[in-house]
């Protein structure tokens, strides 16, 4: 059994860099990333799993950063938008978002990109309807979604190598 004291020492690989830090059990992964590591790319909106602004990857899969404790990430890999945008597929999504005007204030964009990236990687033949269903967990208060769906569909339609 692991230690039961108030502060826990965690080892976590964030965007490829090993980190060893003390955390309080109640601290959310998203606050650990933003406040302790200074990675402000992922945002915090609702803090109860509804808006998707805090979407990051935990061991390669998207999760809500506000519904994971930092201590749960011990010995795991976390990737935030700062690290994810090193990949070709994420860069293709970023370019398509710009081309299609799929962001205005940009608050939702990092979460939107992280969610879209998992779709492009796991369901490269997704239809427009499936794209809409997939991003239904990410709120955008500016764009009205059409442009975001257009941008993701552009990337899905472009060469399949992009997804690699």
């Amino acid at each position, binding site marked *: *059994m*692991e230690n*039961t004291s*108030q502060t*826990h020492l965690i080892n976590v690989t964030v965007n490829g860099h090993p980190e060893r830090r003390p955390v*309080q*059990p*109640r601290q*959310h992964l998203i*606050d650990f990333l933003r406040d302790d590591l200074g990675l402000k790319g992922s945002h915090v909106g609702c*803090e*109860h*799993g509804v808006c*998707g602004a805090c*979407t990051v990857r*935990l061991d390669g*899969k*998207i*999760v*809500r950063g*506000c*519904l*994971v*404790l930092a*201590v*749960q990430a011990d010995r795991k890999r976390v990737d935030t938008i700062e690290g994810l945008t090193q990949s070709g597929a994420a860069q293709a999504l970023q370019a398509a978002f710009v081309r299609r005007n799929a962001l205005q204030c940009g608050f939702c964009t990092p979460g939107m990109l992280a*969610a879209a990236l*998992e*779709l492009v990687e796991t369901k490269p033949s997704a239809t427009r309807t499936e794209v*809409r*269903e*997939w991003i*239904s*967990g*990410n709120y955008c208060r500016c764009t009205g979604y059409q442009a975001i769906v257009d941008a993701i569909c552009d990337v899905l339609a472009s060469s399949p190598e992009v997804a690699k």
Partner: protein
Amino acid sequence: MKAPAFDYVKPHSLAEVFPLLQQYGDEARLLAGGQTLLATLNMRLSEPSVLVDLSAITELRGLTLAGAMLRIGAMVTHSEIEASALVAQHAPLLPLAAPHIAHRAIRNLGTLGGSIAYADPAAEWPTCLLALDGVVVAKSATGERRIRADDFFVDLYTTTLLPGEIIVACEFPVASANHWCDFDELARRHGDYAIVGLAGAGQRSENTLAQVRLVFLGLGATPLRALQAEGVVKSQPLTASLINQAVAALKNELSAVGDLTSDAATKMHLAGVLLKRMLMKQMQSKNA
């Protein structure tokens, strides 16, 4: 909002969990995927003093075929169920329902056991477990209990699980060659908890359904079986008039509890729409 302060432990076996539950009693909360629990802690609807993280306990994982039952470990995630070839083959209702549960980022962590234990009346897994006549396997310091879904969900967020008991797995009868199942729900937005949903399962030969179980989510305090409607369609060839009789029986036997967005009458109407759609689809697929 942020969660209140609590402590955190991560045991590596079930044997380590039971003494913790004994020691902390009501103050301890099991942490599975956290996709309900952490949201309620953030809203300060619950203030436990210690969270017992179940994620390192291998006994709670795994998907296995055990005789006539498909056994799915409590810590298996919604996404794992959605993607499993074994589940698609032996309990095809589950992958039909999975995409309706929340959103991908939540399905990647949320677990079968957490959903069954929480027993939300609008949740998909409790409804599917009841429709498939499944079994909850629970363990405590003193032994194992197998509880049929029919006896498990007793009231709003209330099950027959006892203090000190943990759900270790759920078991689903393996689909036979003539197994029939279908799932549909109506939600205001994809991934939201549904207004009303319906899981159907049974045996099919030609245009006739037998051993049918029709279970609604979102209507009452628990997932609800429509026993009279089941009786109407059972062992009779499906026709438009039989289907209308089933919908009438449904409206006669069940009543809905309204919520913030849909009143009771709307919910009952929508339940009828879902039942009619599901049975019509079945009838048409056989006549085609």
